[in-house]
């Protein structure tokens, strides 16, 4: 017993000593494989010369999953994983530029040709440059660009759970996917450095794929290392009918033969064989930290740009403590701060010399909004929707919410779009900005018959009561909880049933400035806020049953929702979003339930009715679409943030943009002299 006591006491003492020793240690500089204690220095004030770091610590609020299979097995890929992929895998035929437009990657593509047959099917033929290599020195040839598609669409890939539907649009896709033929007719290996891809104008699923304004995106293909992903001995061959994967050792392309390799490559935490500006050196899951080092074999991005910053360390950062972490040097670079309060504090820190950093700012490629269900309740009338918009001072809302770091847009766009830049005058002259105008809202409500009280008597403006309108049975559908029957007449109140997600600061402000605002009350409108979880809100919005338990989600219940949207690239594609096709609507498309033939046609024709490159036609349709959207107002834009990114003064030429995140901008950064 005495020995046990002694042991316990010793352990406790040891633990305390170690903890104290650890507490006394200063933050050391990263060193590879170092087992020696780092020199202990006093904390240096900002203005004293610091040791030059050759690495940059980047904070991310999104935890990396470490899935590097290019979203082959998953419906989505998180922002950090996407950044890592951009930084490590950039040997692609098509990429996007600073404006978000799809462009050919001139560092990879030597020549490119697009041809079309009589049926409108398009063939994209590439010749890639010789001398391209992976980070391990393996040469990159045409085989490497075909291999991934051949795997993803193959029966083996499908058995492993790949989610791509590209087989519907690639010539011969279904036959290859189902194992009827061993080759994919739409992919051709034309030589060591040449290959082609054929896309069907009308896919095997009956959908029209061409013409498509952004059809260059179809031709985006990525080089993967066959040995690394599938094991040794795999090659791509073409006997004249189409490309296929074959193994030197006689292995069949089956799940059993490749699954282990694919899974190992998919979740590798180091030593990935890739061809991007950086190499994945280590993914430390315990510390949630990713280390990347420059790839000397990189051929450059689409402009030939190669990185100068030798090492990137990406760490998890918490929103609550991000400023303190930046202040204490825990993070050098942090992208896309949206919170106005944090931005103001950050700029104070920079301008006050508290941190040796600078910042860049850019408009968010997206906006926050509230949307209506336009097929029932009072929101079925566009004048009502417009009246609600006029009861909110959106400029004030945006200013309050973004604390000066944001603004308002008046349609479904962001200011970074080329179309917007080319349409500024048109939009300024033609868009209704729905300025704060409670009187105007009253006039609009009167114009559609909201002129009664609940008892059927005439409504007196300014009474503060809720307005009513006499409606038909059809118009009153799904609004039983709100409509009243008076003397055989059905009266519908100007009441919106709002589904609002919990813990949402936009909802809180919307509640204060709109739902409980004076303008709404004086106009005779009522907005009932119903707080719920976001998944439940989505169920009501999509009107779909959840988890097979039935429920009332398919019954129209709420006619106002607040959400946000964004674009990852400059591709502006609203197709199917305003569909009037009953089957698509039942499947959750067209969540605004605005059944407007004109808007539906414009949203489809804008991308599927315009030849690639015909910008003038596209721009004209885009303007008409925005105009119609602005008039019908299925959604009311609320705010569009200005994002701010902070970076250390030890690097220069760092500039992010709406479609140009840190993973692209860092390639252009260099060490300060």
């Amino acid at each position, binding site marked *: 017993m005495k020995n046990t006591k002694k042991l316990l006491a010793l*352990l406790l003492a040891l*633990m305390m000593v*170690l*903890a104290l*020793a*650890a*507490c006394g*240690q200063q933050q*050391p500089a*990263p*060193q*590879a*494989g*170092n*087992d020696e*204690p780092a020199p202990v220095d006093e904390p240096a004030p900002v203005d004293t010369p610091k040791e030059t770091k050759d*690495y940059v610590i980047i904070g991310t609020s999104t935890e990396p*999953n470490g*899935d590097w299979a290019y979203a082959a097995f*998953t*419906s*989505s890929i998180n922002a950090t994983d996407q950044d890592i992929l951009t930084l490590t895998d950039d040997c692609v035929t098509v990429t996007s530029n600073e404006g978000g437009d799809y462009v050919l990657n001139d560092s990879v593509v030597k020549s490119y040709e697009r041809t079309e047959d009589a049926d409108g099917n398009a063939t994209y033929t590439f010749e890639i440059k010789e001398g391209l290599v992976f980070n391990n020195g393996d040469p990159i040839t045409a085989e490497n660009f075909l291999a991934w598609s051949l795997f993803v669409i193959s029966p083996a890939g499908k058995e492993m759970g790949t*989610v791509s*539907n590209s087989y*519907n649009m690639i010539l011969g896709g279904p036959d290859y996917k189902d194992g009827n033929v061993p080759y994919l007719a739409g992919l051709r290996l034309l030589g060591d450095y040449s290959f082609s891809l054929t896309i069907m104008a009308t*896919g095997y*699923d009956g*959908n029209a794929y061409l013409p498509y304004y952004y059809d260059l995106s179809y031709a985006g293909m990525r080089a993967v290392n066959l040995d690394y992903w599938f094991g040794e001995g795999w090659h791509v061959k073409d006997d004249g009918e189409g490309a296929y994967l074959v193994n030197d050792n006689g292995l069949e392309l089956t799940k059993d033969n490749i699954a282990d390799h694919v899974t190992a490559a998919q979740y590798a935490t180091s030593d990935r064989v890739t061809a991007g500006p950086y190499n994945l050196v280590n993914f*430390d*899951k*315990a*510390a*949630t*930290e990713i280390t990347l080092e420059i790839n000397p074999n990189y051929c450059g991005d689409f402009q030939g740009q190669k990185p100068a910053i030798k*090492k990137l360390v990406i*760490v998890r950062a*918490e929103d*609550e*403590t991000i400023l*303190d972490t930046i*202040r*204490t040097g*825990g993070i050098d670079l942090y992208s896309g701060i949206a919170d106005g309060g944090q931005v103001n504090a950050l700029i104070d820190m920079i301008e006050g010399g508290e941190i040796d950093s600078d910042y860049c700012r850019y408009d968010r490629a997206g906006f926050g909004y509230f949307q209506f269900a336009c097929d029932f309740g009072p929101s079925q009338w566009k004048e009502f929707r417009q009246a609600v918009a006029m009861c909110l001072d959106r400029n004030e809302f945006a200013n309050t919410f973004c604390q000066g770091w944001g603004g308002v847009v008046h349609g479904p766009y962001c200011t970074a779009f080329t179309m917007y830049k080319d349409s500024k005058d048109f939009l300024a002259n033609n868009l209704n900005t729905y300025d704060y105008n409670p009187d105007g809202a009253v006039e609009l409500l009167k114009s559609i018959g909201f002129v009664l009280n609940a008892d059927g008597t005439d409504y007196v403006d300014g009474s503060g009561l809720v307005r009513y309108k006499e409606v038909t049975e059809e118009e009153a559908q799904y609004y039983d909880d709100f409509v009243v029957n008076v003397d055989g007449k059905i009266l519908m109140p100007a009441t919106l049933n709002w589904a609002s997600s919990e813990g949402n600061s936009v909802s809180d402000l919307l509640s204060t400035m709109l739902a409980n605002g004076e303008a709404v009350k004086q106009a005779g409108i009522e907005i009932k806020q119903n707080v719920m979880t976001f*998944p*439940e809100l*989505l*169920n009501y919005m999509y009107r*779909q*049953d*959840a*988890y*097979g*338990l039935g*429920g009332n*989600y398919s019954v129209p219940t709420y006619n106002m929702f607040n959400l946000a949207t964004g674009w990852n690239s400059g591709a502006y*594609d609203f197709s199917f979003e305003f*569909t009037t*096709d009953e089957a698509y609507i039942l*499947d959750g*498309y067209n969540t605004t339930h605005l059944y407007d033939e004109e808007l539906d046609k414009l949203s489809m024709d804008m991308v599927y009715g315009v030849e690639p490159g015909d910008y003038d036609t596209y721009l004209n349709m885009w303007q008409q679409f925005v105009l119609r959207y602005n008039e019908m107002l299925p959604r009311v834009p609320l705010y569009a943030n200005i994002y701010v990114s902070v970076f250390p003064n030890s690097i220069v030429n760092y500039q992010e943009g709406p479609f140009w995140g840190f993973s692209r901008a860092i390639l252009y950064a260099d060490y300060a002299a």
Partner: protein
Amino acid sequence: MRKYLIKRFAYLVVVFFVVSLMMYAIYNLIPSDPALVQMEPLRKTLKPDEWTAQYLQLRTKLGLDQPLLVRYARWMGFMKDVDGTFSGLLQGNFGYSVSYKRPVVDIIGTPMLNTILLNFISTILTLAITIPLGIYCAVHARSAGDSAIQAGTVVGYSLPTYLVGILFIYIFAVLLRWLPTGGAKTPGSTYTGTREFLDRLYYMALPVLVLVFTGLAGMTRTVRAAMMDTLSQDYIRTARAKGLREKVVVYSHAWRNALLPVSTSIMGWMISVFTGGSLVIETTFSLNGTGRLYWSALNTTDYELVLAMQMFYTLVSLVGVLLTDLSYTLVDPRVRIDK
């Protein structure tokens, strides 16, 4: 003893399955569609027909078109799954995380180890401080020192952990620059051996300090109360009357007897903090632990991950209660659990 253990084990099994059914039913009542969660991001990339086909296919694959009891039986491993094999909890399949897109078992290991390490250190330190403090307070009950300790420890107990965390970050990281604001290691370092261990401890120091500070009051008061109760017993008076030194009275006679109620508290407390993680601490200090994982899974409606963690906690709690009961015999030889 064996009979008692068999009885307790049977009880444990029954409770485990009852709890599992209840938990499964509760999480399935939450209005969320795992198939929709997985498929929603594909709306913009798939054509509607294809999206619908894949959505329905996924619902079938996940077995969502089956009644609740069937789904439970499959999840637990009592029934064959959609693929015709038994692959439930009982077969070691903890489910599939829709947010991480990986089997749950591949996800929880690392956070669990982090949480256990963090909580192990903080628990040992807390006990090392609170036990002597509690004894001191009991021996010097109602003295100025006792009152000061009571008041001091209750501050940590009363303040929200989040607030203490932010306050400590401000003091120790921002003002004094002694410790980092968060994280688990020096970014980019590739230390090994002792250097790595010390680096990890350095980054763990601040969260440990917060955990210790906020955990002082509870155990101090438990020890104090147990000791005060024991010190008022007749045999303590007898011991003192015999002329024994006060140190011997306190540590050899009183403390050993006071240990019985204290040990149950310690046992339960240790099991809960070892495995449960601390959402607030882990999110404040950017640590990859089970508390944050659990919170993240709830927010992303990743219920298979949530359920797996819940069932693990359930099992640990049940085993913990059993161990606590068994520990009575170790602490107090008078206790015979087989009678």
